[in-house]
């Protein structure tokens, strides 16, 4: 019986010329979004990889230098453009793309695209994600708003009941019928996206396939949730136009109003500190100690005394090691601790703000797919933090190595300009090689969105079986 209903639904949709027009329009949009987006992604990734290689080249060929001068000369880290970012650009336009790595300082990740854009930028970019998250639900509404009310208006609902089809069977049949139609548009296009995606960039992103599949499953579940909601609305509406207006109203609230309102609410609940406060706290903690009672001068004096005691000498000139290198590394490690504390504080505030929106996906399934999609495309905030940490660890690694060299090899008594190292040293520092988070990390951090999608599905199946007997009473 199910199969018959599904077949009937598919036939009706195929005969519906408006559905066909809307479907073709969406397919065309998706095509443009996927192909042009893919081209843009490739262009950007190529440029960044090139810049990264160039900067490493400059590093290796910087000539003879004191190791500490080299630490100041510094290095750059470029954020790779994730392979799947052409499907969902996520936060990519609002986060910086590169960071300068130098001694003593954790710098900001700079040069976001949005800062160079005009007001148009705020309208966002056409991507597959936009089509799938915003426009597919509309197509679904379009397909389903009169799926029940039409039968009701035309009097066929009673006839079907008389054939022995239960309301529940009928409803589930319509859900699957619509789902087949939606998947018939979705699957070819997503397959196309899979074929054009940049498989050659697996160097930065080894997990593209599992991410892509998870993304696809996520969208497939999202469509099912939306179909269920739209069909239930239609089933319980007296007239087609009432059904349409209700579904559209829900769409506007879920996709247009709530996401913005949630984000602004999150910022109110978990206020963000200002850059000025942030920098001031860091400077003060470095200067006066993390607890405020351990100033820099005292830290250095203690360190010096301990070192003198260890080697049993009375002045730093008598030390067999370079005091400057040791002091510098100790300073580095202290500021690292401060940076870790303060940066984590801000990151945690942002993460809490985002969590609020993830939890809201239990009220609004659109938010669930939005977070999931960004996460699997690796364009979400977690990824930005992962990149920042990767770059910062790289910085700490090479600065430490240079300080160590200074400590051991720059013997006391040799003037600053007289101790230099060269290419061998620069070569010994590996190029910055950042790996995007793998699929399992993403899944474990996105469990809220995944659970909420499943929660929606199960809840909708249940409510369909409980309430479907009331359909015929309306």
């Amino acid at each position, binding site marked *: 019986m199910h199969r018959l209903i599904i077949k009937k639904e598919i036939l009706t949709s195929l005969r519906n010329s*408006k559905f066909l027009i809307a479907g073709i329009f969406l397919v065309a*949009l998706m095509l*443009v*979004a996927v192909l042009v*987006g893919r081209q*843009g992604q490739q*262009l*950007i990734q190529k*440029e960044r990889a090139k*810049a990264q290689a160039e*900067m490493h080249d400059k590093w290796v060929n910087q000539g003879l230098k004191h190791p500490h001068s080299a630490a*100041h*000369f*510094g290095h750059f880290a470029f954020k790779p453009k994730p392979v799947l970012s052409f499907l969902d650009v*996520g*936060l990519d336009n*609002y*986060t910086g*793309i*590169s960071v*300068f790595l130098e001694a003593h300082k954790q710098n*900001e990740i*700079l*040069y*976001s*695209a949005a*800062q*160079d*854009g005009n*007001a*148009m*930028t*705020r*309208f*966002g*970019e*056409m*991507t597959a994600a936009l089509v799938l998250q915003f426009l597919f639900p*509309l197509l679904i509404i379009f397909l389903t708003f009169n799926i029940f009310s039409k039968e009701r208006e035309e009097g066929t609902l009673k006839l079907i009941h008389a054939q022995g089809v239960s309301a529940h069977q009928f409803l589930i049949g319509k859900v699957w019928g619509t789902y087949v139609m939606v998947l018939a548009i979705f699957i070819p296009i997503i397959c196309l996206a899979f074929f054009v995606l940049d498989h050659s960039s697996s160097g930065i992103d080894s997990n593209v396939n599992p991410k892509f599949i998870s993304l696809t499953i996520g969208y497939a579940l999202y469509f099912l949730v939306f179909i269920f909601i739209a069909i239930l609305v239609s089933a319980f509406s007296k007239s*087609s*136009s009432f059904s*349409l207006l209700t579904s*559209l109203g829900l769409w*506007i609230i879920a996709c*247009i109003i709530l996401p*913005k*309102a949630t*984000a602004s609410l*999150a910022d109110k609940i978990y206020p*963000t500190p*200002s*850059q*000025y406060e942030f*920098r001031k706290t860091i400077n003060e903690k470095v200067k006066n100690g993390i607890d405020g009672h351990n100033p820099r001068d005292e830290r250095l004096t203690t360190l010096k005394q301990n070192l003198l005691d260890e080697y049993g000498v009375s002045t730093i000139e008598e030390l067999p090691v370079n005091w400057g290198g040791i002091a510098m590394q100790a300073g580095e490690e202290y500021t690292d601790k401060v940076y870790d504390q303060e940066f984590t504080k*801000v990151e945690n505030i*942002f993460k809490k*703000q*985002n969590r609020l*929106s993830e939890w809201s996906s239990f009220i609004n399934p659109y938010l669930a797919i939005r977070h999931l999609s960004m996460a699997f495309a690796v364009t979400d*905030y977690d990824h930005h933090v992962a990149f920042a940490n990767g770059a910062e660890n790289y910085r700490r690694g090479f600065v430490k190595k240079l300080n160590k060299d200074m400590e051991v090899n720059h013997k006391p008594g040799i003037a600053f300009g007289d101790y230099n190292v060269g290419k061998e040293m620069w070569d010994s520092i590996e190029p910055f090689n950042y790996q995007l988070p793998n699929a399992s990390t993403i899944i474990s951090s996105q469990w809220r969105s995944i659970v909420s999608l499943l929660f929606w599905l199960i809840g909708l199946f249940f409510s369909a079986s409980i309430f479907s007997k009331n359909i015929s009473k309306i």
Partner: protein
Amino acid sequence: MNTFFHILRFEWKLLWRSNMVKLLLLVMLGVGVYGIYFGKFEIEKQNIRIAEVKNYEQAQFDSLLNWVNLDTSNIANKANFDKAVLPEGAGRSFHFTYCKTHEASPIAGLCLGQRDLFPVYYQLNMRDLTRQLNTGELVNPMKLLNGNFDLSYVFIFLLPLLVVSLFFNLYANEKEGGTLSLLLAQSKSIDIVFLGKGILRYLIVLGVSTLLLILGFLIQGVSIIEHANLFFQWFQSILIYSFFWSLIMAWIVALKKGTSISAILGLGIWLILTLISPTLLNLLVSANKPLPNRTEVRHTVREINDKNWEAPKSYVFNKFHAENPQFPKEDTTHFYSWYYAGFSVMDKELEPLIEKFESQVNSRNNLLEKWIWISPAALIHEHLASISKTNRKSHLNFVESTKDYHQRLRTIYLTKLFSKENFTEQDLKKLQDMSRQ
């Protein structure tokens, strides 16, 4: 004319009795007021921050003015006295951190525009300006992506939806309700009836929007009388924008389609004009004219720095004196003159590179602006942001005035350094006066 008012009056009664219309207007008012409060909240947050940094700066000035008068025969006072008078700064820190702030226009809260993207204050010392301008406020990128729920957003995105929902069943309702034939049987032309219905709906939309606009000014504490021109500019924009949407809906009504088709058509046009066309335009422009990678600026900074430090001091001095002949040339060994002149040379050398990037960015943005008309929503947003001085242009003006300020400060510092003089109380007071302007 009498009949016309008659139509208006009865149509009003009909609409007023419809719970749907009441609900719609209530929702519109609700989100509008939320938007006003949100904008107010954001701008107040920025204003508080601006006041904080400014107060901190002035407190630091007060300390300097205290220290400059310390009795240096007491050795304990020496350190603070040095902090006040040495233009190069005492103990490897800079003499002073200045603060340049970008005050919000009184109505910025109605349209936050790009103001959340750009820093609203810069903290400056006498190093190169380039690196000091490369900073941003701490913002959750997720919030930037979502954008601001301010009054302009309500007008740009939700007002057209209100128009669509008031208009879509104008014809179909009569037809589906069976009253159309009654109307057609009247002696007056049916067009007058529909014209009346349309005008009334337009007036309702305009009324709600004007009410929101007035509330916006009142809640944000902006006097409408004092800023009558701003109010009028906003009003004008809304008047035109809602008229534009009413026209589109009038056209849909004239097609004489059923309720569902009219609603879908209205929503479809809304989608195309507010969502699809701007995003498509952005996609095409950014794929064909990608933004330049500004990292090159930061790289050039280190190259220049490297050269300045590796070469003999005369390298910097020669470049500096060629640009600034007014400074004395005698001493070519003084460390701090060399040190700060180096930053001036760096800024100068970076100018062409930065200009190159700016012109690339501008040509991309100009391309976008040339096509902005394909989305009336984007057009009106840009317009409202420029009235409220929250667009990119206003930020660029702020950057320009920061550059100018930094240049004036630099001249004062370099004059002192090259003539090897210290700051006097008079000098510090003059600097404080400059900082208050």
